[in-house]
């Protein structure tokens, strides 16, 4: 079984899982905050934030990748500063995770925002009359009620991160063992003569991971729905 995929392909699968997992988990708190702010708060710059969050969805991925390179590259205005404290993103797996997180962010925020909007604010009012301060209302009432949306958003983001190609290859290139994720590897195999078999097997692996994520999300959301709405 292990030699069904070449070592290089296995490496790509493992790297993709790692990159996607980190991209999802690290952006989740920010995603919840952005979704909550967009759904519940009215503030100057609301439209701007909404546009910013959705930008990666409508920009060509190559453009997003190039903008990342400009900002987070070693000479970019944030990258330069990060470089001084020893954090390098360009051409590293961490950079691939950043690119995947940014590309997946709109999907994550949209899913969570929908679930925040579905929470009855009157329940939160009721909690406040019972002595719960704002942060506690969020933790004890809002958060448990939006859990299905958070799970859906996280899994959607994970799947999107697994498939991210354009921004990743622009920002961190296609270095085997470093930044070569599954889509980059499939692309590389297809560029080399005689790589079709390896590419096809990697495609199957990608489909398997995607289906696995889908089933996991179904199962989790049913579990949560039973806990929340169930008798």
């Amino acid at each position, binding site marked *: 079984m292990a030699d069904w995929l070449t070592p290089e392909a296995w490496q790509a699968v493992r790297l993709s899982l790692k990159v996607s997992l980190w991209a999802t988990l690290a952006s989740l708190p920010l995603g919840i905050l952005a979704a909550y702010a967009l759904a519940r708060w009215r503030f100057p710059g609301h439209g701007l934030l909404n546009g910013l969050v959705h930008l990666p969805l409508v920009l060509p991925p190559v453009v997003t990748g190039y903008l990342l390179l400009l900002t987070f590259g070693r000479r970019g205005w944030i990258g330069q500063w990060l470089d001084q404290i020893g954090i390098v993103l360009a051409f590293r797996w961490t950079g691939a995770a950043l690119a995947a997180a940014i590309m997946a962010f709109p999907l994550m925020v949209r899913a969570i925002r929908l679930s925040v909007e579905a929470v*009855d604010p*009157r*329940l939160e009012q009721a909690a*406040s009359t*019972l*002595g719960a*301060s704002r942060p*506690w209302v969020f933790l004890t009432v809002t958060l448990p009620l939006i859990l299905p949306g958070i799970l859906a958003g996280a899994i959607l983001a994970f799947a999107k991160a697994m498939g991210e190609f354009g921004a990743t290859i622009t920002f961190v290139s296609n270095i085997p063992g470093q930044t070569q994720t599954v889509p980059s590897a499939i692309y590389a195999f297809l560029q080399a003569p005689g790589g079709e078999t390896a590419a096809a097997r990697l495609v199957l692996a990608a489909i398997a991971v995607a289906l696995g994520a889908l089933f996991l999300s179904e199962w989790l959301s049913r579990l949560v729905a039973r806990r*929340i*709405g169930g008798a």
Partner: protein
Amino acid sequence: MLSVTLRHRFAGFTLDVGFDAPEGLTALFGHSGSGKTTVVNAVAGLLRPDFACITDGDTVLTDSRRGIFLPPHRRGIGYVFQDARLFPHLTVRQNLLFGHWFTGRGQKAQLSRVVDMLGIGALLPRRPAALSGGERQRVALGRAILSHPRMLLMDEPLASLDQPRKDEILPYLERLRDEVGLPILYVTHSPAEVARLATTIVLMDRGRVLASGPAAQVMSDPATAPRLGLADTGAILTAQIKGQDADGLTWLSTPAGPLFLPQVAAPIGRSLRLRILAQDVMIATVPPQGISALNIIPATVRDLTHADGGVLVRLDVGGQAILSRITARSARVLDLQPGKPVHAVLKAVSVAPGTIGLSAG
């Protein structure tokens, strides 16, 4: 004592009210859209009015002039909403203990006391989705009580329930008022609930307070009583059970003299609130004879008010007031004048059991 002054502008509607709510149950009564819920939300801190001064004894809850606005979670005011608002992801037990967990006041042992009082012991492990409307409302009531509030707000807690469910909850509200002794601000547009529960009435109309004061006084005031609905106009009389007669009548003593009612299922010595509808009271200038009505009370005419083609006569009976609605012609023929001694004739059946509330004995 809760003291409320507030002004708030909505689109095309201005709320401008001021009233005091002493101990007991204060009913905020008025039609839909008269601003009752807004007042209660302002007291709870869920709404920040344009101008308000809301105090409870020495505690300032809101004072626009001094820029004080206590957030809802620090007010210690329990709120029972019309739509229960139980947390769907928590069991009944967790819902009940929600407030206790945050306020940290009171003993957990009180849970069993409140659960017993409300009769919700069997529901504890269930989730709100599996409860009936009446059960949900009782749990919501218990949840508010267990947060150990300084006072309770209730916004039409019975409005979404059918009559049997209302009858199921009303006794608990009476017990809450009389046994727990918690001040309650109660929003309603039901004259029956006002008559049964209120110790103080605040009558609201289109964002203004028309009248406020002790329930017996507001309900027997011809100037305000018709606002409760003409068919429901009536006074409240306090009475005490003196005896149960063998022929099925209950003998009550009132400041107006003895009264006879069809059997009242309550022990001797118990105090009652009787609601006497104005349309069930006849007036006779001489003691009537050969009449089937059992209750004939000597009374004095206090004043007459013309209302909707009829006359509302306020009668003084032993220091308390009852109302009688008669035609203008009857008033003229009987030559009714303030100070004239008359006899009030009440049919024994005129005090419906549903409007009898047990008050603190």
